[in-house]
């Protein structure tokens, strides 16, 4: 391909495909992203689909979107302002114009802008003709007309050919970015291997879109190029956080030489983990779709007692239902991973939107004093490693562990460098030896973990449960001193995990004017905002926390080297409440957002500047 004269080279670009629910936006978004990955770009993707299964056509409620952020640099967030917006109907334009910049290229299917569709989404005049977009880089493509014309000689009905409207705009978008269509063509050949005529039809429409570029007026021939990223050698997958979580858990079970047991009840946005694990029977995963969340966790506790690597997965409302049983896992000191894919709350809240509002529940939301490990994954691919570590720490320290992810991590994707599972750390739970003098609550002196005696093992019969037990012997007792001792031991056991996790890293200088503190799914955008601050010459660093309970041992030391600390969270202030409780000697500024939207760079930077000036 000759380099087009007008080609603009970009370090990164954000493209969003939007249309009606049935328009196939998720598919072309994924194919576009995979084409970028194939070209060596780093990337993230973020789907944005309606909560309803079949919302009314052409309404705002029915808009389905898929955003791809790709570049030659390391892509950390899901991207904010769009470089290209591809709209297959007026409703999707209306819903997404707010994410466009002044110079965003907007591609629309002009055939879809009819009186009827405009009215359905509340346009009182046609934005394509009323001059409201006159300063925009608008490309009008009569998609239906082109397809009908180009396929008229073929033996297909209208319904069939128009199902591929998405392919036409995908072809054009690939051309805009000077990407080849070969990846998509291969995909189509494979996907429709048994229907070669459909494969060919789709390829034809894809290429018509690609070539339509040549017919565009000169002032609409926008052309971009995003060079490949300098990715480390190796194999990569474009993976979302839910799948990565499922795989991390499977990897942990393999490294622990245990069967994975999952007890789970479907709930958005966590269901996909259950769906994914249910596929992997060949890896020995025993997956039960329970009758409710309580049965999900209780069956997992039973499985853990019986010697499996036990997991339960859920989202906010389900976590509430599991609370009592989480206390049982604390009391019986059994390993258990509880994955909570956070969504907007309280109550049913905003099921399809993301938020970080379950942290305090994870830390303290149980009756009695029931401490457990709390971790938070920080990117889609990191869900793999976080899930692995949650399982490892839980198994080796005989304590339940909550892993917090969130809707955006769960559904969002990024490139994941495929590791060799055999190089991941081994997992060695403290198994009790057969025919020894077994005491259920005797502890490893270093970790304070009790020993795991698996039913069926000779000479280890014992009984445990939710009643307070005497330390070492495990005999039920209400002895006052023993209770105090046990409460403290359970807390200390969790605290000692700090000896087994990495120290807290600081991005940027280890000391300075402002430390930006965050946790969980906000890492990417906050890191980008800190990079910009540093570029602007400010002494700003970033500490992003994955280990929350316990905190890394050097946290206090890290905090003490900065003049100011700001804690950024997508909630009304929860991590900050925790930090004020455990490290009250510092003053914490806050940046909070509770709109079920990610942070935006500008609003973060504005906060940082305010704090710096304070």
């Amino acid at each position, binding site marked *: 391909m000759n380099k087009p004269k007008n080609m603009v080279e970009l370090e990164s670009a954000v493209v969003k495909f939007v249309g009606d629910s049935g328009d196939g936006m998720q598919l072309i978004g994924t194919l576009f992203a*995979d084409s970028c*990955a194939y070209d060596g770009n780093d990337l993230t993707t973020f789907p944005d689909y309606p909560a309803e299964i079949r919302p009314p056509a052409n309404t705002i409620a029915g808009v389905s979107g898929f955003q791809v952020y790709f570049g030659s640099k390391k892509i950390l967030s899901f991207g904010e302002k769009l470089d290209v917006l591809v709209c297959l109907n007026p409703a999707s334009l209306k819903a997404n114009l707010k994410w466009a910049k002044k110079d965003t290229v907007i591609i629309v299917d002009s055939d879809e802008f009819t009186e009827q569709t405009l009215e359905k989404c509340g346009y009182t005049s046609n934005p394509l003709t009323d001059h409201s977009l006159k300063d925009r880089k608008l490309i009008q493509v009569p998609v239906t007309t082109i397809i009908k014309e180009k396929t008229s000689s073929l033996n297909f009905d209208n319904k069939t050919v128009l199902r591929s409207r998405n392919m036409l705009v995908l072809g054009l978008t690939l051309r805009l970015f000077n990407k080849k269509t070969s990846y998509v063509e291969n995909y189509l050949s494979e996907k429709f291997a048994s229907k070669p005529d459909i494969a060919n039809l789709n390829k034809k429409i894809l290429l018509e879109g690609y070539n339509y570029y040549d017919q565009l007026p000169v002032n609409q021939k926008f052309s971009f190029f995003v060079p490949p990223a300098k990715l480390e050698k190796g194999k990569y997958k474009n993976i979302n956080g839910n799948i990565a979580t499922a795989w991390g858990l499977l990897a942990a079970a393999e490294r622990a030489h245990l069967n994975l047991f999952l007890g789970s009840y479907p709930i958005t946005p966590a269901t996909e983990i259950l769906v994914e694990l249910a596929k992997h029977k060949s*890896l020995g995963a025993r997956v039960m779709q329970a009758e409710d969340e*309580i*049965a999900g966790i*209780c069956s997992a506790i039973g499985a853990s007692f019986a010697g499996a690597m036990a997991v339960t997965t859920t989202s906010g409302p389900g976590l509430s239902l599991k609370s009592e049983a989480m206390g049982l896992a604390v009391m019986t000191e059994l390993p258990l991973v509880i994955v909570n894919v956070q969504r907007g709350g309280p109550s049913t809240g905003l099921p399809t939107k993301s938020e970080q509002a379950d942290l305090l529940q994870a830390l303290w939301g149980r009756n009695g004093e029931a401490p457990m490990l709390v971790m938070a994954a920080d990117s889609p691919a990191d869900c793999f490693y976080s899930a692995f570590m949650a399982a490892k720490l839980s198994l080796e320290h005989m304590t339940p562990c909550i892993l917090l992810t969130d809707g955006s991590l769960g559904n969002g994707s990024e490139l994941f460098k*495929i590791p060799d599972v055999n190089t991941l750390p081994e997992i060695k739970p403290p198994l009790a030896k057969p025919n020894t003098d077994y005491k259920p609550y005797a502890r490893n002196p270093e970790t304070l973990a009790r020993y795991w005696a698996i039913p069926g093992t000779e000479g280890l019969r014992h009984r445990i449960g939710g009643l307070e037990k005497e330390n070492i012997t495990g005999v039920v007792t209400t002895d006052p001193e023993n209770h105090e001792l046990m409460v403290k031991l359970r807390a200390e056991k969790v605290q000692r995990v700090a000896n087994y996790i990495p120290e807290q890293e600081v991005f940027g200088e280890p000391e300075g004017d402002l430390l930006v503190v965050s946790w969980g799914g906000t890492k990417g955008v906050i890191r980008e905002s800190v990079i910009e601050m540093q570029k602007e010459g400010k002494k700003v660093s970033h500490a992003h926390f994955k280990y929350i309970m316990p905190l890394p041992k050097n946290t206090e030391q890290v905090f003490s080297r900065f003049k100011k600390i700001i804690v950024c969270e997508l909630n009304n202030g929860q991590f900050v409440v925790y930090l004020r409780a455990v490290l009250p000697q510092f003053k914490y500024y806050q940046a909070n957002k509770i709109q079920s939207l990610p942070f935006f760079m500008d609003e973060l930077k504005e906060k940082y500047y305010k704090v710096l000036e304070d």
Partner: protein
Amino acid sequence: MSPIINSIERSNVELTKEDFVSGLPVKWCPGCGAHAILTAVENVFPKIGYKKENFVIVSGIGCSSRFPYYVNTYGFHGIHGRANAIATGVKVANPKLSVWIATGDGDSMAIGGNHFIHIIRRNVDVNILLFNNMIYGLTKGQYSPTTPMGAVTKTSPYGTIEHPFNTGELVLGAQGTFFARVPDNNVKLMTEVMFEAAKHDGTSVIEILQNCVIFNDKVHAHITSKETKDDYQLILKNGEPMIFGSKKNKGIRLKGTRLEVVTIGENGITEDDILVHDQYQQDPGIHLMLAKMSPPHFPVAMGVIRSAMYPTYDDLVEMQIDEAKKTSKIRNVNDLLNSGEVFEVK
């Protein structure tokens, strides 16, 4: 009793009652029906003959749920209502364990009702000992889902206005494959029934009419007392006619679509007219009618009412796993990570 042969490893030494006594002081009230249940379990475990480490007892919360502490097996005392869910996890994680559940009428039919019907529906291979004292014992005498309508209890000073569950009807409604009923004062029958339950592949529910001497004394007496038991208990035996009564002359006959009590020797009725019990029948119709019989017009059916063969959940799990292991290309997690779309950077 012929030995039970299945995938659970058997003991290679003869076991006795003493092998299963935990030695912990038993804290139920003197005269509580639970003591007899413990005796029956200590009788039957050695007879079942599995290695003693292969028994697991799981319970919820209630007087009944203290049970695991008193038996020397692997034991798990759970939380209120969740014994059936916990036990499901135990069995699915390790199907080579013999899993027993000790639970109460409140534990399994009020707070844990959902898990109770679902463990039965799935037909997980476990044995449920349901201590039905028709009251909340541990919390000192509130009515339960099986308390008879009108009963005065702490929380129903004017009499309950709730329709009680008939345990058997609930179990069969949930597609139960095994249901038996026994009075707490017949340890021999209880032991036999427990053995049958162990033999049955699937969820076996044994409803034990248990007396709570403190909060619901004699609630079952109209069925279980010396004076009433012969006329108000029909002890079912597979393949035998359903005959009962102090004079052994009463029987159950099918009249049209309903059961009726008849007297042998009266109105030309002979033994041939009496229904013969078929516990293995898949159709639950007669089993349901038997489970629902109650005084004053009928005796209460005791013994194994139903024991029908259906695949168990845990077997099906294992079968799917074995099949997947044989046929899937994904044999380890590395295979999985490298499956599907992979992009290589050279």
